[in-house]
């Protein structure tokens, strides 16, 4: 038997696995959506969805949970992408949740709307009757995420029960659920940060300018560079200065740490990713709150 050339590169195998998962979602659920944050992972996820249903359009809407504290570049990128794809964009607004009294704004210097997003997300899922929400989370990001399934069941309160997960074998995904329950699905579970960047280069996916080096007004808090913004309160002693930075991850402004970097191309970013000795979430303020910060948020229904 001739088997010459019958192999796939790791990126093509990961791509194929992810497209399979995304198609499974479209086939098994009635009202799925794709959680789009404007970060590299959800950009790659959207790109994979585009490939998986070609020449048809992506058969589900994008859902953005907007903290109101976004980088302007993120919103511009999002709106252009949605126009290009011709898909529906839904926005769940944290500001609205605050205005309606669903959540209470944190106060203090480290105030962030990161945790508040969970309520907005769960409310939006319920209002729109979504039965599956796909996200760009990866298992290599964080130790609680390393335990995630591709198809992750959520009870009617949107909660994750990590100790009682359904076994997931081969590529047979069980998306069965009762009324009111939903699934979170993570098609790029098996990708690493490096895979994501290599794939972006391979596919030449346009990226928001935030990922590349630029000058920005920043200040340093506990060793992390944060972007200056009207709602970012400075502690005594902290001062705003202009630095040459880029984002390694993009969340909202309040929790996104910036990296001092001159990387201005995908090749530079890949070289930087290969050399770095700190995890990408190491600069995320939201994960620094406790040892199990991610697990606790996930149990409540976080992304």
């Amino acid at each position, binding site marked *: 038997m001739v088997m010459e050339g019958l192999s796939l*590169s790791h990126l093509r195998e990961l791509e194929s696995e992810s497209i399979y998962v995304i198609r499974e979602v479209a086939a098994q659920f009635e009202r799925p959506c794709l959680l789009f944050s404007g970060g590299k992972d959800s950009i790659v996820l959207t790109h994979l969805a585009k490939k998986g249903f070609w020449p048809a359009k992506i058969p589900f809407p994008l859902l953005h949970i907007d903290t109101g504290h976004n980088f302007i570049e993120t919103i511009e990128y999002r709106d252009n992408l949605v126009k290009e794809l011709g898909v529906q964009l839904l926005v769940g607004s944290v500001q609205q949740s605050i205005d309606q009294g669903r959540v209470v704004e944190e106060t203090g210097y480290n105030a962030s709307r990161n945790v508040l997003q969970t309520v907005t997300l769960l409310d939006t899922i319920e209002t729109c009757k979504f039965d599956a929400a796909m996200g760009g989370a990866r298992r290599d990001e964080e130790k609680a*995420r*390393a335990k995630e399934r591709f198809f992750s069941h959520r009870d009617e309160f949107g909660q994750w029960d*990590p100790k009682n997960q359904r076994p997931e*074998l081969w590529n*047979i995904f069980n998306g069965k659920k009762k009324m009111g329950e939903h699934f979170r699905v993570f098609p790029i579970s098996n990708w690493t940060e490096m895979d994501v960047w290599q794939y972006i280069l391979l596919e030449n996916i346009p990226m928001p300018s935030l990922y590349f080096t630029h000058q920005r007004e920043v200040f340093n808090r506990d060793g992390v560079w944060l972007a200056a913004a009207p709602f970012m309160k400075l502690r005594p002693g902290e001062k705003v200065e202009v630095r040459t930075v880029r984002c390694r991850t993009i969340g909202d402004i309040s929790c996104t740490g910036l990296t001092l970097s001159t990387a201005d191309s995908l090749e530079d970013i890949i070289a930087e990713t290969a050399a*770095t000795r700190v*995890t990408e979430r190491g600069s995320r303020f939201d994960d620094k709150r406790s040892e*199990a910060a991610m697990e606790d948020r996930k149990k409540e229904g976080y992304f």
Partner: protein
Amino acid sequence: MELLRFTTAGSVDDGKSTLIGRLLFDSKSIFEDQLEAVKRASIQKGSEYINLALLTDGLRAEREQGITIDVAYRYFATPKRKFIIADTPGHIQYTRNMVTGASTANVAIILVDVRNGVIDQTYRHTYIANLLGIPHIIVCINKMDLVDFSREAYEKIKEDFQEFATRLQLNDVRFIPISALKGDNVVEPSVHMTWYEQGTLRNILENIDITSDHNFIEPRFPVQYVVRPLTGEHHDYRGYAGRIAGGVFKKGDKVIVLPDRLTSTIRSIDTFQQQISRAYPPMSVSFTLEDDIDISRGDMIVGEKNPPEVGQEIRAMLCWFNPKPMQLNGKFILKHTTREVKAMVKEVIYKVNVNSLEEIKDGKTLVMNDIACVRLKTTKPIFYDPYKQNRITGSLILVDEATNETLAAGMIL
């Protein structure tokens, strides 16, 4: 660069976490902040050394109880390959986790403590690895530093293992004497065991030939989703989307569509904005066919020669995962490829004692972690191959109609 998935199995103190920690650490896949966190947690717990197990035990309950509850996935890459580790708990009641981790693995690493030799758990892990069709098995004989790197001790275990292995028809078994703690033969060759010359663990993982792990002989394409743009230039486009489960499909190939056994020809194999000339596992593609026939999710497009079995009576090895015991003639949802049917277990032919490999014939029910040969009956036909021939078209799961839980995994005989 290729992707290799492996699973690790060992008993509680065989040094599994240390081994994984070593592989990650030596390939620079552990970051400083991760290591700092582990150091801090180790000191807090009063441990004298850095407990690398804390890297893989991601859940609060796991860290509190010092046990691994669930499969954790780890990633590292060398210049030659990218690796995905399914790290499964070794504890006795977690057979279901090992089965889960093993289901997608190319390689199983089985750890043996050189001081304890081959024990019941080694048999169980090897049996499961073989049952789940993992093509390559690497037996790591660990803690060689504690027996003065004795060649005799190593050879004795190798012999014991081989005696057991002959009963299982394993294809590819390799043995490596290692010390995960000291690093001997994990990434660096051991200076203490110059009598061993077959390469370090990492070396073997990098070079083991996995190209024939997929089935490239019998063409199988379970239809997953029908792509219908219904707009503009693609108004009449009808693509059958799915992932190749076996064989090689080429443009122009004559194919049969199951269950109706209609024949057609592949007009195109499409990926994003382009057509390709051939498709093979594990590619995700879309087919268009020359003939306008009714095809939907759960149907299967297959090659003209060597079609799969089509049937409603199936014999399978079943691993039962649920605390609720299996009842004969109870109804389940059976998921197989992209197809879903109702099914009943009509008969427990025998249960397997995974420690002695004995077949037990008196079973009418299955409890959690039981492995048994059963006869299943489905309401509609499924299109299948023996699991030994194709891990995708030969596998199934059973789902509870009432609770929706995944109850069991099945390997078709």
